[in-house]
């Protein structure tokens, strides 16, 4: 049973470029969330997808967008990259949108460096 898988694991981009990160949720999970973790900090919530719709969004600009596909996999897109976007981007999956105590699993993350 594969856990949450993310690709690519590492990438380097130049300021102003665009990047797409991909995530496949754990088997049986239908909800995908994305988090940004800057070096030395805790993860910050970007947005959450369920039934192919963005359900919740954190305090991130419109340069951050996403998509969820019918097979529950998801993409995170960041446009007009800034140096400050350099971070570990984490994908998390869970079953359903609601319910306290739902177990949330994280992928290993995609390291993005913007130069």
């Amino acid at each position: 049973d594969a856990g949450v898988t993310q690709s690519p694991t590492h990438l380097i981009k130049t300021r102003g470029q665009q990047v797409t990160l991909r995530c496949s949720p754990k088997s049986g999970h239908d909800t995908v969330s994305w988090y940004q973790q800057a070096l030395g900090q805790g993860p910050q919530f970007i947005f959450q997808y369920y039934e192919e719709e963005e359900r919740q969004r954190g305090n991130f600009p419109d340069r951050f967008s996403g998509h969820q596909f019918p097979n529950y996999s998801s993409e995170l897109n960041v446009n007009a990259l800034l140096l400050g976007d350099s971070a570990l981007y984490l994908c998390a999956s869970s079953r359903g949108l609601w319910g306290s105590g739902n177990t949330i699993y994280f992928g290993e993350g995609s390291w993005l460096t913007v130069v």
Partner: protein
Amino acid sequence: TQLLEQSPQFLSIQEGENLTVYCNSSSVFSSLQWYRQEPGEGPVLLVTVVTGGEVKKLKRLTFQFGDARKDSSLHITAAQPGDTGLYLCAGARGNAGNMLTFGGGTRLMVKP
């Protein structure tokens, strides 16, 4: 502004010592999760606590959820070098789905 404050931020101890990490908030959470993260990897779930006052044990780790569901603690007994890592607490609110609010983390180093 962090809604969840973790303390201490850094902790360096000798093997065999005990330690406690605290996670505090002024907000009520429907559940609270503790994760451990190794460098270059994603957070790995240790435990989820749901009920106020709940205590859960995982070998040498003891987790407690405050009665008011605003705070939590993680106590490690007889720490080992393998316990070294970043410990993160994360809260979920009942009206916010499975969105997690993370603390800033506690970086623990256990020296042999």
